[in-house]
């Protein structure tokens, strides 16, 4: 059962273990790449964003995360495409209309749909490449070993780790209050009235936890020194450092380029 719990966390993380070159890259390189993709998704024309999305999806599939990509992309882009098609392609008053299979469509509206879809697809597939190949603990170690302040990595780690205990406690409080007669199965108003009985213990306990955890962190020397020693830090290389600098240099160029483009 405990092992099953470990699995649950893996599932919520979307991380897919692997040994390929993408997995072996330093997490900061992938993070910089993701940043560049985000900039490019807004700066480049639709054709380029679609290429980015396709390349990212191909990379993810090669890295072994094809199933995650298929599921997430379909779930997000499918409904979005339908909505954009109906709203911008048919309903809204865009010019250049034409008839197709009995539908009254707008060429400009459809181009707008492609533009939005391309951006979202590039952003989403770029993020998926990052999260499916980067375990948060590797990201933490990479940040720490590159001298980022420990507070930054704590902000990334603690929500991921503490969400589940928090959910468990919310469930326990709900059960305890139901068992003492609080009606959570009744009308909407009955549930509204019951809300404080659920929320107050949760908040009180969370505050007590934060207080306690602050003491635990002090006791373990958190932030006692400006830099931590990191064990098993992800490998880095001069070529990756160069690649990151190039990507960081490209981003402002893309932004400036976008002004001329649009």
């Amino acid at each position, binding site marked *: 059962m*405990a*092992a099953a*719990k*470990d699995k649950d*966390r893996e599932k919520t993380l979307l991380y897919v273990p692997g040994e390929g070159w993408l997995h072996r890259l330093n997490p900061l390189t992938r993070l910089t790449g993701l940043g560049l993709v985000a900039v490019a998704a807004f700066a480049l024309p639709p054709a380029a964003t679609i290429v980015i999305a396709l390349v990212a999806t191909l990379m993810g599939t090669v890295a072994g995360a094809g199933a995650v990509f298929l599921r997430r992309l379909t779930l997000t882009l499918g409904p979005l495409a339908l909505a954009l098609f109906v709203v911008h392609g048919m309903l809204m008053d865009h010019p250049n209309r034409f008839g197709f299979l009995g539908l009254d469509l707008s060429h400009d509206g459809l181009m707008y749909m492609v533009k939005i879809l391309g951006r979202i697809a590039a952003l989403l597939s770029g993020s998926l490449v990052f999260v499916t190949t980067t*375990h*948060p*603990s590797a990201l*933490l170690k990479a940040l*720490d070993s590159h001298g980022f302040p*420990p507070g930054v*990595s*704590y902000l990334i*780690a*603690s929500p991921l*780790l*503490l969400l*589940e*205990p928090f959910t468990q406690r919310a469930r326990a409080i709900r059960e305890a209050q139901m068992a003492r007669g609080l009606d959570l199965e009744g009308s909407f108003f009955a549930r509204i009235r019951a809300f404080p009985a659920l929320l107050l213990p949760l908040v009180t306990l969370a505050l007590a*936890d934060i207080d*306690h*955890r602050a*003491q*635990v*962190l*002090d*006791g*373990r*020397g*958190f*932030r*006692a*020194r400006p*830099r*931590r*020693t*990191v*064990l098993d830090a992800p490998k880095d290389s001069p070529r990756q450092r160069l690649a990151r600098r190039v990507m960081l240099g490209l981003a402002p160029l893309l932004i400036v380029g976008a002004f001329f483009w649009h």
Partner: protein
Amino acid sequence: MALIEIDNLHFSWTPGGPGVLAGISLQIAAGERIAILGANASGKSTLAQWIAGWLPTAAATAETGGLTVQGKAYGDHDAASRPGLAQFTGQVPMQQLSGFAFTVFDEIAFGPGNLGLPEAEIRARISDAIRICNLEALKDRDPFSLSGGEQQRLSIAAALAMQPEILVLDEPTSNFDPESRDALLDQIERLPAGLTIVLADASLTTALRLAARFVLLDAGRIIFDGAAAALLAHPRTAEIFGLPEIRLAAEYLQSAGLWPAGVPMPQSTGAAISVLRPLLAASGVSQ
């Protein structure tokens, strides 16, 4: 100089509120194993927090008196050396986890890493802690998926990796069933001999197993400080913890003139059986 010196400490959680510690004076030498015992709300948990350096805080300070460790108040030691003085393990295992580590190994590495120690030393400390707390099989597991007993072992291991002078345990087994409790007590018994252990507990059984010196708190005051035999003979001990039924049975028989003269009152079930079985067998009216 004692490792910990507490001098006439008066403390309450809110200024002018009810006194929780009412004039505690206590010295603890390096390497001692000492139990702080008392009824519910007698102040033992508060005293444990003082000894571990969790008190005073900005909002809760001593009314009079105070505590020094190695001759200085905790606040006068620098932030990087305090973790090496005292470590604290409380009642709720999950609260002791840092919320920073995705594996047991990383949870133990967290503290020494914060101190910026050399990698080789951190690895040595981790492997010691893993061995002492028997965590080898769990070292790649998610800390939040462990059972309460396993989490408590992890929290002790993470404390040991800071190489503290003092380990303070506040009712470490109070939330466990007998099996996990016994396993954890076995573990605590095997901690390094030089480590000073301060145990705050409401259970006489746990304390008798782990400690050599016993401090009995009553309404924020120390009313006894000494060894096991004297503790058990102290009148307040029976009132606070209740005597085991076997001891009461022996006392009933003694008051009826049926307990053999010169034989001490039994402290354990085994002792009671070794006295009463032959006695009843000899009475002839046996089963």
